[in-house]
């Protein structure tokens, strides 16, 4: 029985066509994955199903809803009212759809909390900010279930979560849908999720359905197969002899905040051309370790040596010299480039660390070299960051790091905001740069990716480094 049907639905924002001729029929109890990269139109489709398209969007065709449609949002913190206890919010959703009394609605929300694996007694009276990301998304799911929908739409429901929590939350959404006989439309850029949970998959690109089919057969369709290949993409790396002194040498690093110890004795070494991964769930101190390594914060004890100089014990010209040897690329390509600067100026910024003062021409030449090295045109220097896609911006961020010819580049979740195709390109680029002798310290949630890319992976747990996931290509030491 069809519960949600799209009949040749088109969505336009002014002149831009976001979705065209989109037809899809969802039957009760079915799990359909709608996959596609940024700008593929998948969010427009889910918003059209909910009747939530923004003002100014023109819609064609028809969306036929036979039952209620509920949504699990991408960022639960934004979907929940910060000033209301979560139990009351879910109870409100219950009352919006039934004649339940206040007390009955609260009982119902306690039951829903149990269904989504939350301890109702402990969580009902909390405010959203007092919950973890995973707990908040569970509340979001309880709220969606409260209206007893026939269709559940989950639009990138785990983007804000780490991989362990992601797996749990997705499994929860899928099992809740199957148990209640609801149709589930799982909107995601992650083909791996689709492969694991969906009955059927629809691949969108540029607003059109490119391929669609039942799983597992659909995995053999050419575009989906190509996506899978990129998903499992492992960059080619050329082994090079391990020579030279440590680029990064951390000894006995201890740090904490307000009496709470975050790092309790970290030792690590990185040699030229080596890629090291650092994994672990959120809140285990990965960011703290990075900030200490980058010299953005001073440790309580221990040393961080970059090419033999302790970054926390030098000042002035010596500090600038250490900084020049180490650069960073951050997670969010949208926020890591100043939107008011031209790309040329952004990439040139670290040249302030260059030992000699450079002429305007010399700076322009270095910027052009760096841009070409990351696969961009030298003319990109003239444009503002807003003109580039996420992947291109991450290349610009890499060019900014490369312009001072560093020995070490720290990557802070540098590929997690990118879709699979772009991520594969950036990983190839990083692998190629490592072959030229640059060492990388890569902090990430993506175990599969780092296992393929890195020479070594550590896991940060209870303030200490322990050997993490085995790498696919362990390199002989020495």
């Amino acid at each position, binding site marked *: 029985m069809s519960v949600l049907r799209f009949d040749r639905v088109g969505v336009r924002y002014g002149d831009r066509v976001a979705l065209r001729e989109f037809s899809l029929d969802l039957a009760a109890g079915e799990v359909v994955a709608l996959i596609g990269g940024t700008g593929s139109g998948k969010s427009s489709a889910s918003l059209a199903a909910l009747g939530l398209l923004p003002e100014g969007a023109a819609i064609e065709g028809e969306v036929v809803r036979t039952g209620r449609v509920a949504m699990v949002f991408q960022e639960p913190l934004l979907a929940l009212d910060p000033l209301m206890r979560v139990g009351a919010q879910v109870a409100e959703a219950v009352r919006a759809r039934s004649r339940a009394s206040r007390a009955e609605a609260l009982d119902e929300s306690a039951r829903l909390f149990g269904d989504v694996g939350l301890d109702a007694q402990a969580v009902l009276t909390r405010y959203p900010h007092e919950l973890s990301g995973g707990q908040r998304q569970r509340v979001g799911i309880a709220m969606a279930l409260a209206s007893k929908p026939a269709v559940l739409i989950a639009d990138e429901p785990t983007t804000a979560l780490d991989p362990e929590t992601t797996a749990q939350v997705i499994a929860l959404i899928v099992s809740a849908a199957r148990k209640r006989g609801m149709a589930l439309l799982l909107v995601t850029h992650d083909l791996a999720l689709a492969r694991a949970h969906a009955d059927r998959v629809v691949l969108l690109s540029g607003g059109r359905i490119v391929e669609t089919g039942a799983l597992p057969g659909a995995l053999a369709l050419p575009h989906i197969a190509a996506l899978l290949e990129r998903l499992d993409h492992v960059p080619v790396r050329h082994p090079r002899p391990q020579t030279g002194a440590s680029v990064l040498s951390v000894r006995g690093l201890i740090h904490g905040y307000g009496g709470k110890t975050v790092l309790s004795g970290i030792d690590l070494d990185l040699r030229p051309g080596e890629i090291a991964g650092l994994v672990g769930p959120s809140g285990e101190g990965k960011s703290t370790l990075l900030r200490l390594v*980058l010299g*953005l914060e001073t440790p309580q004890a221990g040393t961080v040596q970059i090419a033999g100089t302790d970054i926390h014990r030098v000042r002035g010209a010596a*500090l600038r010299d250490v900084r020049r040897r180490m650069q960073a690329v951050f997670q969010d390509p*949208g926020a*890591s480039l*100043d939107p008011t*600067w031209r790309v040329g100026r952004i990439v040139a910024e*670290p040249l302030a660390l260059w030992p000699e003062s450079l002429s305007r021409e010399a700076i322009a030449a270095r910027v052009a070299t760096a841009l070409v090295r990351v696969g961009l045109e030298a003319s990109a220097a003239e444009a503002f960051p807003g003109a580039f896609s996420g992947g291109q911006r991450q290349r610009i961020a890499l060019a*900014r790091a490369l312009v001072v010819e560093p020995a070490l580049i720290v990557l802070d979740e540098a590929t997690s905001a990118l879709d699979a195709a772009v991520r594969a390109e950036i990983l190839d680029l990083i692998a190629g740069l490592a072959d030229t002798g640059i060492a990388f310290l890569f902090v990430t949630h993506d175990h599969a990716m780092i296992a393929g890319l890195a020479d070594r992976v550590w896991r940060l747990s209870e303030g200490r480094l322990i050997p993490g996931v085995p790498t696919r290509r362990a390199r002989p030491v020495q």
Partner: protein
Amino acid sequence: MMRGRASLIAGLALTALFVVPALVALAWTPWDVTAIDVAARLQGPSARHWLGTDPFGRDVLSLVMAGGGVSLGVAVAAIATALALGVPIGLIASARRGWIDEGLMRGADVLFAFPGLLLAILLSAVFGPGAFDATLAIALFNVPVFARVTRGAALPVWSAPFVAAARLAGRSRLTIAMTHVLPNVIGPLIVQASIQGGMALLGEAGLSFAGLGVQPPAPSWGRMLADAQTLIGSAPRLAIVPGIAIVTAVAGLTLLGDALAAHLRIRRGRA
């Protein structure tokens, strides 16, 4: 989007409606605004005097044009002074946080809590009433507004990764504040400045009306209103003309600010 476009056009049109005559009045007015001609007092609109004359026989059109210039001058000087003081305070507070931030912002709160009119009375007691004390009072009143807007807009910028990248490039806090943070808060500041500009015009008119601002014989919309007060029964035109001028100017600047804010939100949304 359409609404934003409409209020941008309306805002620009209304603003031009008082700015252009005010600028013209700097060089030329139909009649000398200080020339008193008692024989021609309280005339209605005519070909000679398009908006008639006031109790001293002065040309109302010339007065309203020149008065706009004075009001505009006071408003622009006040907002410029407030920006010059408020923006650095907000930037420093956002850059240093901690007790410096607390101190500056509590200081701003105190200034903010101080009624503007009381401040103006105090200043005119010190400096004597005039355009200077009106400008200073309006400026001081606006310092905390700009300090807060700057600080509020700057705080998220300081935690942006591009600021971390600038620190890795060895930039000092001062350099980062000037080159990264300031350009990123200029949008909201322009919006706020145009809205506060409207409020400043209103403030100047109010102070001059109360006798605390521009002094005769210098023309000003507030003074014109004050002069018209006793004649409201016999010559309502004398109050209506400057009244419409004030409403137009304030509405124009406020609409302009709103439209700029909407435009900025759209651009942010796209980025």
